[in-house]
């Protein structure tokens, strides 16, 4: 019997399993639900296989080699460290890489990276949205003049990536940028960073954190009485991260592009077809949590890309090459979202050959002490600033990687 | 085996090493106090004394492991307040230890070969290839070491890691290692502890042979009076860090201070 092989790289173990478990559950359950409810996609069952990476690059590469020969339709590495080595291999092995809002930002440029997709927004987009939110609160970005913004981040590629853009914003709008790097080994021990925050008294704090960095930072912020409503994070903190700081965390904000909560037909279907039938290891009350839903979103993209590929090619059992085309012409509009039971869950997504990211708006959500509450309208990224940076980065990538292949893949018309 | 070479020629009977007014204390413990004596080329010089008298410390001073707080040492005509261990080794002082200090993880052969380190000159590059000059050198020294192995009759244990050898054989390997340095002055710290008569006889034989045939000067610490009296040419006696007697075995044997402090009964 034919099936479509969808490997999922997950990390339910290791130091980052706190986030990994939710994401893995969301990804797995949505696809499993499709299998149970619809018999797969377009009548073809999905062969879902998890490969445990433990967020470790070594094991991630092992997973890649292990799935490579089984004709996967795409890989979702779920770690920047694993994504980077896969970028050059994707074209060779003809396996598209979906690194959803992480990985290499420059991969948004489809002409350079035909095989890599990172919708719906890059970390640069994220920063520009955060800043425009802050500007908005202050009554215009120009009001930031003379103010100080602190940036606390994981001292690694991920946290450092936004710095050039941040510096440019600081120059353009006249605010002072203060950097507070946190080494990966010091995530649980941030008192000096926050002492510095006390000294510098930044008007806003922006955070790009991961793993234990997030809860510790929130706790430390509470400890020094940093005003929580001025503390804004990129999209990774979870409910647990905020909860651990107790009431003091009220008002903490993070960027997000999809809803939280389980009140969506699709998620209810997960409950009905998957969790209630014990076809998963998922803890029932994880459904609807922010990172669970992120996993669902990721799988929604996978499923829609496959469906789209089937539509373009007319084949039932699609290959990686087909799905790459499916991703490039992905168009999940409002109607389609409604159809798949995710109405109001997120904004429509549409990718093109040139733009593998979409730079879609995100909104701000706030921690009210028990859950995340949406507190802003969708915010658009500042493409005027991000765009040039992206193309420059992509260009640089090509220059440094001599012999980087020119795009030969034809561009499909959106179906 | 070849005769030891290098350094200014000192005729047999001349002073090879002289210790003058040397003192050494560790905190409150006076290990050695104002001791002077000399060792003449070619002789077997025994150092005896009760436990804790400072004998081992004296050897440690001679080969630079302890730095005396006072006094001077003259070795082969060169006088200095203190010596660095490698200077002593390069100058031709070999040594065995009271608590066997072999390289436990290595075989007997390697231990003795290690004694040749100072004599081996081929550089890193040749070692890397273990070929040509490096291999020739290796073989040349191996021949020398084999002579020692034959001499000490330890052929069968060549390839045994020394940690597993019985105590007596370890002592013998240690002697071999010291001999491999072709020392001019050989310091032996209780070489016969833990041996039975038969083995002591063997060991005595080795010591005498080394002394007779190669003219190696020997300083010997030993508690077996029979051995000391039979082997040594002159004896220096320490007690509580102080020299209490110095002379031929017969003189020392009859010295009342020595009898009181050490021998207990006249031997």
């Amino acid at each position, binding site marked *: 019997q034919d099936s479509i092989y969808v490997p999922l790289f997950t990390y339910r173990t290791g130091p980052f399993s706190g986030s990994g478990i939710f994401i*893995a559950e969301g990804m797995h359950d949505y696809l499993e639900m499709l299998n149970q409810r619809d018999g797969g996609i377009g009548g073809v069952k999905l062969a879902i296989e*998890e490969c445990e990476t*433990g967020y470790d*690059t070594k094991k991630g*590469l092992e997973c890649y*080699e*292990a799935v490579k*020969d089984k004709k996967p339709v795409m890989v979702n590495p779920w770690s920047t*460290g694993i994504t*980077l*080595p896969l*970028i*050059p*291999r994707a074209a*060779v092995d003809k396996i598209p890489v979906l690194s959803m809002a992480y990985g290499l930002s*420059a991969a948004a440029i489809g002409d350079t990276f035909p095989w890599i997709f990172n919708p719906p927004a890059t970390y640069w987009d994220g920063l520009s949205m955060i800043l425009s939110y802050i500007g908005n609160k202050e009554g215009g970005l120009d009001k930031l003049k003379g103010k100080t913004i602190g940036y606390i981040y994981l*001292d*690694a590629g991920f946290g*450092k*990536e936004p710095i050039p853009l941040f510096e440019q914003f600081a120059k353009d709008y006249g605010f002072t940028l203060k950097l507070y790097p946190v*080494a*990966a*080994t010091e995530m649980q021990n941030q008192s000096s960073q926050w002492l510095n925050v006390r000294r510098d008294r930044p008007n806003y704090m922006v955070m790009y954190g991961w793993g234990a960095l997030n809860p510790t930072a929130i706790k430390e912020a509470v400890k020094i009485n940093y005003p929580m409503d001025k503390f804004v994070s990129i999209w990774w903190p979870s409910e647990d991260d905020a909860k651990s700081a107790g009431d003091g965390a009220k008002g903490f904000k993070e960027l997000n592009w999809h809803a939280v909560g389980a009140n969506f037909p699709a998620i209810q279907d997960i409950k009905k077809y998957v969790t209630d039938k014990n076809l998963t*290891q998922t803890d029932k009350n994880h459904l609807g949590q922010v990172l669970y839903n992120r996993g669902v979103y990721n799988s929604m993209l996978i499923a829609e890309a496959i469906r789209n590929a089937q539509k373009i090619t007319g084949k039932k059992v699609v290959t990686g090459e087909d799905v790459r085309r499916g991703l490039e012409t992905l168009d999940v509009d409002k109607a389609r979202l409604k159809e798949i039971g995710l109405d109001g869950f997120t904004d429509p997504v549409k990718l093109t050959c040139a733009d593998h990211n979409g730079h879609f708006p995100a909104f701000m959500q706030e921690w009210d002490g028990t859950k995340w509450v949406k507190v802003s309208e969708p915010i658009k990224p500042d493409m005027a600033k991000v765009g040039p940076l992206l193309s420059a*980065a992509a260009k*640089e*990538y090509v220059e*440094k990687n*001599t*012999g980087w292949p020119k795009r030969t893949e034809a561009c499909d018309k959106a179906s | 085996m070849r005769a030891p070479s290098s350094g200014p020629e000192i005729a047999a009977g001349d002073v090879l090493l002289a210790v003058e007014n040397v003192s050494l204390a560790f905190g409150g413990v006076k290990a050695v106090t104002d001791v002077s004596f000399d060792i003449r080329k070619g002789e077997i010089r025994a150092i005896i004394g009760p436990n804790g008298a400072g004998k081992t410390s004296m050897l440690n001073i001679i*080969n630079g*492991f302890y730095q005396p707080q006072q006094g001077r040492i003259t070795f082969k005509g060169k006088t200095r307040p203190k010596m660095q*261990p*490698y200077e002593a*080794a*390069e100058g031709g002082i070999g*040594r065995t*230890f009271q608590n066997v*200090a072999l*390289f436990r*993880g*290595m075989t007997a052969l*390697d231990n003795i*070969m*290690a*004694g*040749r*380190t100072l004599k081996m000159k081929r550089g*890193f590059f040749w*070692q*890397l*290839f*273990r070929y040509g000059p490096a*291999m020739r050198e*290796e*073989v040349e020294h*191996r021949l020398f070491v*084999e002579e020692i192995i034959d001499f000490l009759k330890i052929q069968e244990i060549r390839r045994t890691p020394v940690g597993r050898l019985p105590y007596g054989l370890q002592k013998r390997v240690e002697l071999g*290692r010291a001999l491999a*340095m072709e020392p001019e002055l050989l310091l032996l710290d209780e070489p016969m502890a833990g041996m039975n008569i038969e083995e002591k006889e063997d060991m005595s034989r080795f010591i005498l042979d080394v002394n007779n045939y190669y003219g190696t000067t020997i300083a010997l610490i030993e508690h077996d009076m029979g051995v000391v009296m039979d082997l040594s040419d002159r004896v220096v006696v320490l007690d509580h860090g102080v020299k209490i007697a110095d002379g031929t075995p017969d003189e020392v044997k009859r010295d009342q201070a020595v009898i009181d402090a050490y021998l207990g009964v006249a031997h």
Partner: protein
Amino acid sequence: MLYREAGQFKTSYVADQAIFPIRQDRIGLALILLIAFVVLPLTASDFFLSVVMVPLLIFSLAAIGLNILTGYTGLLSLGTGGFMGVGAFACYKLTSIFPEVNIVIWILVSGLFASGVGILFGLPSLRIKGFYLAVATLSAQFFLDWAFVRLPWLVNYNISGAIEVPTRTLFGIPVTGPNATPQVRYLVILGVVTLLTWFASNLVHGRIGRSWMAVRDMDLAAELMGIRLYRTKLLAFAVSSYFCGVAGALMVFLWYGSAEPGVFGIDQSFFILFMVIIGGLGSLIGSFFGAGLIYGLPIILRGFVNAVGLEIAPATVEHLTFMTVGALIVFFLIIEPEGLARLWQIAKQKLRVWPFPY
């Protein structure tokens, strides 16, 4: 009766000084090399080559490097990851500045940079000993970690903050980059590892190796025999770091294909230290065994579970793998604390006296 030295007489010390004095050993080695160089590349699957063999060889090389320092010279080091990183970054810089020079040359040269850094951090080793010396190497590890992240120059200001391995060729065949086939990468690594292992073996069996071991076993006695401790220890640091540096360069260029500084973290250092210990301190072959056990065992266990087709969630498999590996490590240590290499020796010894028990 098959495995005996009886009847094999050596007529010269050259033959007796040979590293494998027994004929069966030499035949075995030749067979292994034949399999490694010819049979495997022809028959093994891509997965086996790139997931099992490539990493194993690289880890073995790093383990040999650390073994020289820790196993042969008795200096505990927890900075292996950092030294590997130095090699990798040096290689990256070299090949970006001089792209026309052959990558294999740069890989071999990059180890020298690691040597330099190794010597620098080895300087405290004369005064500080044992576990205490670990602090010197740990400061190397953490300082280098920090430097790798903080000096964007090292990664040519790549925005990803990572080394992005360019395609390089050898005789026109790509050896790095996405188009390098597992077979080619494997063969290049195998070549480098074989060459360096041969060097290491020469060193440890000669004068230098003996002075290393002498320092390890009884440094005071070694000093009194005229071995200069300082020089010997620093040489060990230099050689050891060279091996680690080359391993690091190989790891990034011929295995990962791209690397964030994080991969040279302290975990890597411990990982390799454990390979050395379980394989056998002071044994080159042990380094291979150790890499096999620590890196290979989990892969085998995972493969085993897959092959059996047990319906267990992958996370649970991972948990059980961890438990099993942990238990096996303790088990191996109990049956032979001196490492797998010693176990191997005992096995040979038993074979020698076979069919008698002793």
